[in-house]
């Protein structure tokens, strides 16, 4: 018979939300009861499958139509995302391909493996439609080399500039060298000039808007956007944990609406993607974070956001300050929808 208390604790474990006391309670239950261990594997089976889906068939977890959309009838049939979310036949393979290769080491190693296997390799390279050559999208001052300060005014409402929370453009400092060039961005605080007094602020963002309308013909052929940036940090106190994130969303609408649309990105975006990374222990070591997002032919612009945030302790009212968190060399590429996978 299912132990409801154990069930509650297991779900909290899976979501990283156990308190210290709850963790001890869960450990005692698991340690002293074979039935509890059986329940552990039974109840984590769906978690297992959902993580597997994220790896193997992310289309299962495809974005829903905007929830604010008319009807909200639980149907995707009228969604502007429909064509993107439920593409013909083998689009799902493209996501598998993306996910598979996202680990660079394994990608490299697997590349060796598969090339060695020759014709028995399962990864084919064929595209559904005429491809175009991947190319960067225009991003202003991607390496912060101009030294232009980033205004702390939230998401910008036009192309060609960074803005966000309180940050500073710096040169080498505290033994941290820029990833390239002479300057980099340092996250300072998790609020902006527009933050409400007393609000909970634990994420420091910098963002840019890119107009996609000049690329409609390429996007119509099936496209995705690859985003990457380099992050680096000083060691944090043991009691705190910080993370970095790279987020991107595509939208329909006027560029001037970007700040409002981003604020409700989960509902208003045509597509949305985010990738998080723990800060590294090694001071001064840069890590690359990347993410990819499919682009709907209807998309007018994208908002790209790079963030540092405090993950622990739990956010409380007030503003988090960052002791030494840096970002450099953000790049955005438009590329054809990736190759399909054939068995």
């Amino acid at each position, binding site marked *: 018979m299912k132990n409801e208390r154990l*069930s*509650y604790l297991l*779900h*909290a*474990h*899976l*979501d*990283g*939300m*156990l308190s210290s006391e709850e*963790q001890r309670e*869960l*450990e005692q239950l*698991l*340690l002293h009861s074979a039935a509890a*261990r*059986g329940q*552990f*594997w*039974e*109840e*984590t*089976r*769906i*978690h*297992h*499958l*959902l*993580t*597997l*889906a*994220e*790896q*193997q*068939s992310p289309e*299962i*977890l495809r*974005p*829903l139509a905007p929830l604010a959309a008319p009807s909200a009838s*639980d149907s995707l049939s009228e969604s502007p995302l429909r064509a993107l979310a439920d593409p013909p036949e083998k689009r799902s393979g493209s996501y598998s391909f993306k996910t598979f290769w996202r*680990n660079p*080491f*394994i990608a490299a*190693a*697997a590349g*060796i*493996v*598969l090339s060695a*296997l020759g014709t028995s390799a399962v990864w084919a390279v064929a595209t559904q439609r005429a491809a175009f050559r991947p190319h960067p999208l225009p991003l202003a001052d991607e390496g912060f080399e101009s030294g232009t300060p980033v205004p702390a005014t939230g998401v910008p409402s036009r192309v060609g500039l960074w803005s966000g929370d309180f940050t500073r453009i710096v040169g080498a400092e505290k033994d941290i060298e820029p990833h390239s060039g002479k300057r980099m961005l340092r996250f300072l605080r998790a609020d902006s000039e527009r933050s409400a007094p007393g609000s*909970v602020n634990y994420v420091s963002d910098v963002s840019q808007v890119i107009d996609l309308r000049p690329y409609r013909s390429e996007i119509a052929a099936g496209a995705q956007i690859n985003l990457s940036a380099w992050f680096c940090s000083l060691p944090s106190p043991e009691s705190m944990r910080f*993370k970095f994130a790279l987020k991107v969303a595509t939208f329909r609408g006027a560029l001037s609406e970007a700040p409002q649309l981003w604020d409700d990105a*989960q509902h208003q975006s045509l597509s*949305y*993607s*985010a*990738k*998080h990374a723990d800060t590294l*222990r090694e001071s001064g070591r840069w890590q690359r974070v990347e993410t990819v997002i499919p682009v709907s032919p209807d998309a007018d612009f994208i908002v790209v956001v790079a963030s540092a945030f405090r993950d622990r302790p*739990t*956010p409380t009212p007030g503003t988090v300050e960052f002791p030494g968190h840096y970002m450099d060399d953000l790049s955005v590429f438009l590329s054809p929808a990736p190759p399909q996978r054939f068995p």
Partner: protein
Amino acid sequence: MNPPEVHAHTLRVQALYVQHQNQLRSFLHSLVPDFATVDDLVQECFLTVSEKAPEFEMGSNFGAWVRSIARFKVLALQRDHARRPPMLAPEVLESLILSAPDPTPPEHENAALESLRQCLEKLAPAAREIVRMRYFSQWGPLEISRIRECSANAINVTLARSRDALRRCMDSQTASPEVTPSCS
């Protein structure tokens, strides 16, 4: 084996790893529910698999072999206080690993994923979106609660109910898993 044979054998073992890595990743996620840490563990397992490839006998149980490697990696991580995320105690991890069901062959996972897809479509849109944010965007309940402007507890409850509903749905494939999100 002579060096060319070792090389060829290692390549075959690495190819097996590629086939099994998603199952391994999911296994690790149950024990260490932190996406970035699991990424690291999967890489470390690959390095060890490559190093120990000559010890693996083709035709034996690769899934069990790679899990035994993963077991050492998880326990080593548990001992690494500076690096580890919140984790269960080592003796608990040991007992769980020992009681883990046999790995599902990769080819059988496809049927389970198809069943999962059907059941996900029956979830209420808001619940499904929260599941998507958790597993696809890899956001934690705190981040999701911030975006959706509701309490983290409401997100926890929705995630728990959704997983329960999905499990029941997959078990029956007949019932409709109606989950009313605690946070819509």
